[in-house]
């Protein structure tokens, strides 16, 4: 689905490369989390996938990025957005309308979706993210979580095969953050949309995503199944990524002689592991 090969990028006027020799393949139907400290290059990588780089931000671009067999270099971010939908970091500035309905219509209109199909797509997008009652509301009057859902609905109305989100929960409380991730999980499982999400909250990621890629200084230093990645907890700690506490718990039990099996990555696994240890 997404194929990145030896990608390096340096922003014009940038001293160091923002991306340094990245190779990454994301298959259809995956739910991938990207983590890393600030300045690690996560947002730049998302721009490279949706074509904003090199088309919007100039700079030195090496290597190749292919999304659904299209080289991002040969097309425009607008054209690409039919294949890959992007939710940007700043919720407020990415809205182009003042009313929810118009925000969803915007992309549909631009891509000349036929009139009789527009209404149906509008409704199903609102329905899919569970904000049908908000259709006529002013965007200014919504909460952060609701705005985030509007942004996602505006993208999935275009029926992209891939969805890439840049820290969609950064402004949200724990409950709304979980709601957003529940929604992403549903889009991934029910509609088969490939999802790539950049996120600082590793505990949240480990409850939901199947794969993780870890970035540091413009490179991907680890990638794979969540369990394999979190197994390197001391290396992650070194680059400033703090694993969920159940990971530390399984390490600590293992170090003190308990047979924990593999690393526990989330609450359910930790519960099952402890039950096995103390009851079986």
């Amino acid at each position: 689905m997404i194929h990145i090969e030896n990608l390096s990028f340096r922003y014009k006027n940038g001293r160091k490369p923002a991306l340094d020799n990245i190779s990454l393949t994301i298959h259809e139907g995956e739910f991938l989390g990207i983590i890393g400290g600030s300045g690690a290059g996560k947002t730049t990588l998302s721009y490279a996938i949706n074509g904003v780089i090199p088309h919007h931000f100039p700079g030195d671009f090496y290597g190749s990025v292919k999304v659904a067999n299209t080289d991002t270099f040969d097309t425009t971010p607008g054209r690409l957005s039919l294949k890959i939908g992007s939710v940007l970091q700043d919720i407020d500035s990415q809205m182009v309308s003042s009313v929810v309905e118009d925000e969803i219509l915007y992309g549909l209109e631009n891509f000349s979706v036929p009139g009789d199909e527009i209404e149906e797509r509008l409704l199903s997008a609102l329905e899919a993210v569970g904000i049908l009652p908000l259709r006529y509301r002013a965007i200014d009057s919504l909460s952060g979580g609701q705005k985030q859902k509007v942004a996602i609905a505006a993208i999935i109305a275009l029926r992209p095969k891939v969805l890439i989100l840049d820290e969609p929960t950064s402004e949200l409380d724990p409950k709304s953050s979980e709601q957003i991730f529940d929604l992403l999980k549903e889009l991934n499982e029910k509609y088969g949309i490939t999802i790539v999400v950049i996120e600082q909250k590793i505990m949240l990621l480990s409850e939901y995503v199947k794969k993780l890629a870890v970035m540091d200084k413009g490179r991907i230093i680890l990638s794979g199944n969540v369990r394999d990645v979190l197994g390197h907890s001391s290396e992650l700690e070194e680059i400033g990524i703090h694993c969920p506490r159940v990971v530390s718990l399984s390490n600590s039990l293992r170090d003190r002689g308990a047979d924990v099996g593999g690393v526990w990555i989330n609450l359910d696994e930790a519960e099952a592991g402890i039950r096995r240890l103390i009851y079986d």
Partner: protein
Amino acid sequence: MINLQNVSFSYNNEKVLSNISLHIDKGEFTAIIGSNGAGKSTLCRIMNGLLKPSSGTVTVNGMDTRTTKSSILARHIGFLFQNPDRQICKNTVGEEIRFSLDIAFTDKSMIEKRLFETLSLFDFDADSNPFHLSRGERQQVALASIIAAEPEILILDEPTTGLDYVECMKIMSIIKKLNDKGITVIMVCHDMEIVLDFAQRILVLAEGRLIADGETREIFKMEEILRQASLLPPQIARLAARFGFDDVFYVDEMTDIVLKRIKNRRKRTG
């Protein structure tokens, strides 16, 4: 230090805070938790006099916020906002800190002394341009310029939102250091692990009401209260609760209890 008595606050005819009474003593480290829109930020702004209560009274060191100028209250309370970019308005880190010092002190030698102390506490280069720094570093610059003026109380409105773990720990360790020196800290925070690790006391807000106020570990045991506020206890506490282990919050505590249970089982079966 800070005293709120039957404080309510309405905005556009909507009640944002209703009937809140509380007292915060010198040297406390208090966390305010609650979901988006519960009134946490409003409560902070009520405490430092940016907002005046619609009814009830707020006093800071005995001064009524309704009758005291906000510039005078600012001498006692430092306020760090979530977004440092709303605060930073000078071209170098040194000037930014000096800007706060010029407001707070008149004595030239005092200003120079505090500038030097603050720069070394944070390990800053005075000539660096804040706009070339990362978000986390800018947050530190904002914090530095606030604490340079030596406030007795520090209010932090989501100081770690948008920061990575390292940046987060850097900010929190400085705040901890200040608290150890006796500065009162009040912090809004969404990250329950940070609240657990740093705060001694928690205020739980839900729909503008103070639904719980108590010691950190006690509050994190009140699952029903937290549920009302749409919050969850820290991860290890949640895990412990699934086994009915009481008063377990940290990895070490959980490790000990699990190992003890394993030993007991061996005794019984062996």
